């Protein structure tokens, strides 16, 4: 596979990008810069999970903000109330979000078009309402504070600990790379091809004998788990979570970032959050202005550049290099 891909400029750019991400802690002079990059990576995880079900499968899920928040809360509760080890809680949160994803997916994925979107939005609102109502467990509207970071991994020669921001950054980057690999292999697998076909024409897929419901449920659960694990890493990095982290606004923002980056594109899952978060940091945007900017960006992008920034670049690339020599 690498041999096949190694010739493409896309592959070289990806390697360069990953190397760049890996050296960021070395070149960042301020802690703030590293912090912003970490936040971008965390958002990338949410965008990536949404990309699997929406970008590949065409199913616009508005429940992913809630699933991300659910992962954060499961970890937060397990870590602060029960003092459970990070790695165990990480697994537990993945399983819990997977089960909830399954429970949400089975009824919603039977629906098509607008109905699926409305129902997933509804599920997110219910999820957020339950989280903020379980006051004993989740601290209600005040949220959970003092969530511990990942615990150290004892090794035979040295111990990996995650006390510094830099080490947490590498941990998050490590998981992001795994998530990307998962996404990459999903895209090339049989199930991913079915998913893309479902996006084109679901009835046709059924007519050739694909169990479309099963394909959609599997990928929905997978993308829920990725969103939830992203939430765990988010909670362990930020240390404070509130019901807002499980609200539909998170899913909406992820949709904006994904649209910016390019729906269905792998590189787009990081380019979108990168651009949008840098813009809002550059404008020193408080939450209110960010909401307006995001909404406006979403409308403008869908109207003028529905393929996002990666789609735009791909078109430009084609224009510059592939039509050359072809007399028009």
């Amino acid at each position, binding site marked *: 596979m690498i041999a096949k891909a190694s010739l493409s400029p896309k592959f070289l750019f990806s390697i360069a990008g990953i190397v760049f991400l890996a050296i960021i802690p070395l070149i960042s002079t301020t802690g703030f810069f590293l912090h912003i990059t970490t936040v971008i990576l965390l958002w990338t995880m949410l965008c990536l999970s949404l990309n699997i079900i929406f970008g590949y499968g065409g199913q*616009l899920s508005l429940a992913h903000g809630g699933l991300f928040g659910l992962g954060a809360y499961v970890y937060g509760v397990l870590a602060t109330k029960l003092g459970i080890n990070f790695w165990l809680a990480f697994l537990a949160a993945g399983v819990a979000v997977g089960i909830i994803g399954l429970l949400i997916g089975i009824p919603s994925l039977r629906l098509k078009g607008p109905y699926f979107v*409305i129902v997933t939005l509804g599920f997110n609102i219910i999820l957020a309402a339950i989280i903020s109502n379980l006051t004993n467990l989740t601290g209600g509207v005040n949220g959970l504070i003092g969530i511990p970071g990942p615990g150290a991994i004892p090794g035979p020669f040295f111990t990996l600990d995650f006390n510094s921001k830099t080490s947490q950054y590498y941990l998050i980057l490590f998981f992001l790379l795994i998530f990307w690999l998962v996404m990459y292999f999903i895209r090339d697998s049989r199930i991913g091809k079915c998913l893309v076909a479902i996006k084109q024409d679901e009835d046709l897929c059924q007519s050739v004998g694909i169990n479309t419901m099963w394909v959609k449920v599997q990928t929905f659960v997978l993308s829920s788990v990725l969103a939830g694990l992203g939430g765990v890493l988010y909670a362990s990095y930020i240390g404070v979570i509130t019901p807002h982290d499980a609200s539909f606004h998170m899913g909406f923002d992820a949709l904006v970032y994904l649209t910016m980056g390019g729906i269905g594109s792998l590189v787009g899952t990081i380019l979108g959050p990168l651009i949008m978060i840098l813009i809002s940091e550059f404008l020193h945007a408080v939450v*209110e202005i960010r909401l*307006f*900017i995001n909404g*406006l960006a979403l409308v403008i992008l*869908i109207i003028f550049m529905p393929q996002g920034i990666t789609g735009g670049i791909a078109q430009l690339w084609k224009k510059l290099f592939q039509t050359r020599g072809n007399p028009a």
Partner: protein
Amino acid sequence: MAELLQQILNILVLGSIYCLVASGLTLVYGIMNVPNFAQGNLYMAGAYVVFFLGSLFGINYWFCFLVTILIMTAVGLLVERVCFRPVSNAPHVNSFVVALGVLMAIEGLIVIFFGADYKEVRAPWKRILDFYGVTIAGQRLLVILGTLFIMVILQYFIKRTKAGMSLDAMSQNRELALMVGINVNRMSLLAFMISTGLAGVAGALMAPVSFVYPAMGMTPLLIAFAAVIFGGMGNLSGAVLGSFIMAGTQVLSIQYFSSIFSDIAIFGMMIAVLLFRPKGILGGRG
């Protein structure tokens, strides 16, 4: 007995608001096939326009009310032309995303101008009426009567005028309507303007009853969706029926259980209808 009547009044007040919001939703869905996620925030914007005009021009509520309807209709014209028209031929999901963008932009705009705190609009008619132990604030009665009035006008418009009949025809059978030469673009614009107008009316009626704040549109939006799905997407009578049933479910389950139970009950009804009778109780477009 008095308690029961009191509950019924509460259901009527809430149901009226949902009815206005849901009618707009179902109208737009019937013509444009777009679930207008921004409808709840257009309702919120209507409430803010009343608040703004009220603080600007003293307190003549009626004047503000009329101007709000005009402003909101104009907003509808703008939003349809600028945001939804360009994606009308794009893949279907694009218009959903645009609706979400409009939702966010409206809320962001309101927060920028008015802040995120709760505002209060003074009711024009502060008397509390008392019918043999059943009390109702004047403004709440106004919500019910105002909605009734608007819905009668809407019904007259749809059943008796040429433009309204074209709307009805198009939402019932799009291909046939196109065949007899009904203009899609004009109908979309009309449906959207009526829809935002209705949201504006709902916001203006409700502003003096509840507080006015940026997130106030989300619950009515979701309940209106539940109502519209319950009655059948695109079906106006279904939306009206659904609204009152959802309001009933909400009021009674908050009274006897809790607000979270009410959310789950409303939502559960919506899912149940979708799974077992996807075209809604009264039938709609699938």
